[in-house]
């Protein structure tokens, strides 16, 4: 199930713009890694490169390697559709499919890739919603549209949708940035729960959150505006927050940034 990620010399471009430079890091299976850093330093860009979503953008380019349990997801023979199936993603803004019911949203990934067995889909709906702590709230209205939920519920619906296809790795880009503290806690609990089965990488601006949920933390930074973003350091979370190796990291986490 859960797999490890090895990222080697990753360079990412948007057209001519060099957005991220030389990122090398490892993510262990069944662990949570958080990405922190100032806005625009390329956290989302790196994250999107981990399941080949970067190349969806016109003109975007990827150099370097991303190995999933040793297998390069950017090898020419690899189908990006398969990669995304294996490495799921939750976005910053909840984006349930507006034309689908709650249930159909959860099993969208399965239904749209050919699963028809209704009983199996129902089981997966319940299991995924339960694991996203949403089941009790929506079990009586599974056939209502996904857009009828509150923002926090929608985000948990998106998490349920991402886990329903049982990926090996789950990428989350600021999943709590639009949520209230209670929904945020619910999602943090959920991350702790999901860690048993998934390898998780999460981008967050909330350093307490990074400290609470993650095993290791990567700090990204920009040398200057217009320069590519870089990985400054990646450390075990407790160590990074209490005793960082780099001055830049210390400045950032203590709020002396910029």
């Amino acid at each position, binding site marked *: 199930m859960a797999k490890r990620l090895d990222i080697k010399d990753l360079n990412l471009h948007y057209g001519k713009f060099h957005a991220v430079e030389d990122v090398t890091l490892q993510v262990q299976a069944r662990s949570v890694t958080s990405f922190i850093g100032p806005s625009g330093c390329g956290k989302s860009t790196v994250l999107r490169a981990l399941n080949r979503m970067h190349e969806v953008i016109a003109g975007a380019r990827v150099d370097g390697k991303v190995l999933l349990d040793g297998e390069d997801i950017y090898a020419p023979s690899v189908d990006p559709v398969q990669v995304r199936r294996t490495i799921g993603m939750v976005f910053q803004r909840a984006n*349930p499919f*507006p034309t689908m019911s709650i249930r159909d949203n959860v099993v969208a990934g399965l239904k749209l890739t050919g699963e028809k067995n209704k009983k199996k889909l129902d089981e997966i709906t319940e299991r995924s919603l339960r694991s996203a702590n949403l089941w009790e709230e929506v079990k009586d209205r599974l056939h209502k549209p996904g857009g009828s939920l509150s923002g926090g519920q929608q985000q948990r619906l998106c998490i349920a949708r991402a886990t329903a*296809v049982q990926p090996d790795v789950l990428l989350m880009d600021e999943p709590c940035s639009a949520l209230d503290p209670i929904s945020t806690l619910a999602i943090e609990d959920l991350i702790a729960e999901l860690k048993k089965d998934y390898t998780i990488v999460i981008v967050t601006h909330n350093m307490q959150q990074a400290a609470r949920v993650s095993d290791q933390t990567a700090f990204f930074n920009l040398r200057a505006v217009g320069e590519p973003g870089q990985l400054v350091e990646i450390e075990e979370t407790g160590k990074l927050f209490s005793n960082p190796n780099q001055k830049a990291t210390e400045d950032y986490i203590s709020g002396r940034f910029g």
Partner: protein
Amino acid sequence: MRTDTADVEQPAADPAFQYLSLGRKLKNNAATVVFTAAFLIAVVPLLWVLVTLLQRGLPPLLNADWWNHSFYGLLPSDFGGGIYHALVGTIEQALVCALFSVPLGVTVGIFLIEYGQNSRLAKTATFMVDILSGLPSIVAGLFIYALWITTFGFDRSGFAVSLSLVLLMLPLVVRTTETMLRIVPDELREASYALGVPKWKTILKVVLPTALSGIVTGVMLGLARIMGETAPLLILVGYSRAINFNLFEGPMASLPLTVYTARKTSTEAGEYRMWGAALTLVLLIMLINLLATLISKFFAVKTK
């Protein structure tokens, strides 16, 4: 200047808000007058058209024969008969036109937005659609005449009309599709890709359903528009007073052609028919617009 014994009755500073100046009031009133006048100037002729149309066109419509008879066997000076033959013609021609332009136009729209991006082919296609959307309907008629009738040697027919209407409707469908696909947020496409759903399936099952309501509305409005086109009819098909279901053979009536033909007879009965056919055409178009609203509600993305 302020004395040191401050007067408690007086505010310490000038009031933050000032009274509306006379100039502002005048300008405001002038603007109101101008806008009201513009509104009236725009609306009065519209009402006038409607009233005239109803006054003159309603009497024939109240006769039951109007809806299920043709003018077959009637002289131009005879009263009576009905518009059934022309309704059949207009509806058949429009439907066959839609049969071609909707699948083709939606496909082109999908290609332009979802696949074309900035490719040469897409740019060329957009350019062609631009040209086509400015094409005068008489030119569309002439083109089909030259191609279908002169070059291929077919007879003038309802089908030739449908073909020329395709030229007019296609750009409308492409445009609607493009617009509606463009407003589908990329986040939905990305959400689908991130689940491992292939692109074509994402388009088919996520993007199109989200845009469907708008596309259907646009298609219906396009249909309503081409139903009133007259110029190609004058070139591409003969008028018939009899019912002709066959698009491929013989003269075929349609509502605009009936209006035109009836006007040429300059008899009292002709005038009666002319207004009747005109009102029928307007009602048909309004019906389709209404249908468009209903259908778009039906397909609209539901939030409750």
